[in-house]
C-alpha cells in the first residue's frame, strides 16, 4: 500500500514539505487530541468532508455518514465545514455552552485542516486522500492558560506577536499547531514565513494576494 499523499505518483511535483505537512496532519488527526479521542477526531474529519462536499445543498437536503459524536459536536463540525459564513455570536455561544470552548476549538482545527487538504486535492484534480484509521489513547486535556477575552467567541492568546489570525485557535495549542503547520507550508512558501510576511513564491505577491482575497470574498469572510 502506498503512503498517503503521494502527490508525485499523481503527477504533481508538490513540495516535499507540503506532502509531509499533510501526512503529519493525517497522523495527528488519527491520534487523541486535547479533548477528543482518535476515533472521535476521525469522525469529525469524516463529517467535515461530507458537509463541505454538500455545501451547495440546503442543510436539510444533506446526507451524512452515521456517527457516534454528540449532537453538539456534529452541529459544530458540519456548520464550520459547510456554512461558516452563517456563524454568529449567538450560534457560537449556544454550541460552546454545549461542548465547551476547548473541544469546540479542537473540532474547528480538524475541520479547517481537512478543508484545506481536501481543497488542495480538488484544486489539483486528484481524489481525496482516504481518511486515517483512528489510533487508541486518551485526550490530554491540554489547554492554553495564557489566554484572554479579546472579543472573539473563545479566549485567545494574549499578548500575541505575529499575524493576528494565527492566534484564532490558540486556546488549544495542539489544535492551533495542526492547522498553522499547513498554513506555513501552503501559504508562506519557499523559505518564506507566515509570521514575517516574507514572500518568495513562484507567484508574484499581487497574484497570490488577488487569489487569496478572492477566495476570502467568495466565502463572504469579513476577516
Amino acid at each position: 500500500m502506498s503512503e498517503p499523499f503521494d502527490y508525485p505518483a499523481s503527477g504533481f511535483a508538490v513540495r516535499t514539505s507540503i506532502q509531509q505537512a499533510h501526512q503529519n496532519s493525517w497522523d495527528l488527526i488519527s491520534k487523541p487530541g486535547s479533548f477528543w479521542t482518535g476515533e472521535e477526531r476521525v469522525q469529525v474529519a469524516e463529517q467535515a468532508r461530507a458537509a463541505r462536499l454538500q455545501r451547495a445543498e440546503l442543510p436539510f437536503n444533506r446526507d451524512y455518514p452515521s456517527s457516534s459524536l454528540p449532537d453538539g459536536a456534529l452541529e459544530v463540525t458540519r456548520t464550520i465545514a459547510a456554512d461558516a459564513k452563517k456563524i454568529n455570536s449567538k450560534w457560537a455561544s449556544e454550541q460552546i455552552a454545549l461542548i465547551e470552548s476547548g473541544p469546540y476549538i479542537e473540532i474547528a482545527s480538524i475541520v479547517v485542516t481537512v478543508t484545506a487538504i481536501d481543497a488542495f486535492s480538488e484544486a489539483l484534480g486528484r481524489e481525496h486522500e482516504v481518511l486515517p484509521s483512528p489510533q487508541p489513547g486518551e485526550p490530554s486535556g491540554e489547554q492554553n492558560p495564557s489566554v484572554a477575552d479579546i472579543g472573539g467567541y473563545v479566549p485567545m492568546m494574549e499578548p500575541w506577536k505575529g499575524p493576528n489570525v494565527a492566534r484564532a485557535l490558540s486556546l488549544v495549542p495542539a489544535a492551533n499547531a495542526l492547522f498553522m503547520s499547513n498554513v506555513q507550508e501552503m501559504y508562506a512558501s519557499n523559505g518564506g514565513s507566515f509570521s514575517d510576511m516574507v514572500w518568495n513564491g513562484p507567484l508574484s505577491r499581487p497574484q497570490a494576494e488577488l487569489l487569496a482575497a478572492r477566495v476570502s470574498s467568495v466565502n463572504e469572510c469579513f476577516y
Partner: protein
Amino acid sequence: MLLRESSQAISQDVELDATVGGKGAELIPAGKELVAFGEAVTKGADDLDSARNSLQGLLSKEAFLEAAAIAAIFNGLVRTADSSGIPLDDSTKKNSEKFRGDLGLNNFPGAINTERHTQHNGGTLIR
C-alpha cells in the same frame, strides 16, 4: 485581515474591485484566471476543470501548484476566522477602514465581530 497586506500588494482600486467580483483582475498577469480558479475551488463548481486548465496554460508548474495551495489554505483560514470570531487587530482595522467600506466588506456577517471587539475595548464603532 485576510485581505490583509493586499491593501499594499494590490494597491490600485481597480484591482481591489477584482477581489469582490469586479473588474481589474486582468491588470495582474493571469489575474482573471486566478480569480476564476479561486472561485471554482471555493464553490466546488462544475467549471473547476476548465478553470484549472486555463490557469495551467498560463503559469509554470510551480506557480500553478502554489496557486492551488493558496486557494486551498484560504478555504481553511476563512473558516478559522468565522468559527473563532476573531476580530481584526487594531492596526489592520484602522488601515483597512477605507477599502472595507468601498468594497462592501462591512456587510459580511463576520464584520460584527470586529464591532464587538471595538465595543469591548471602549472604542468607536467602525460603521
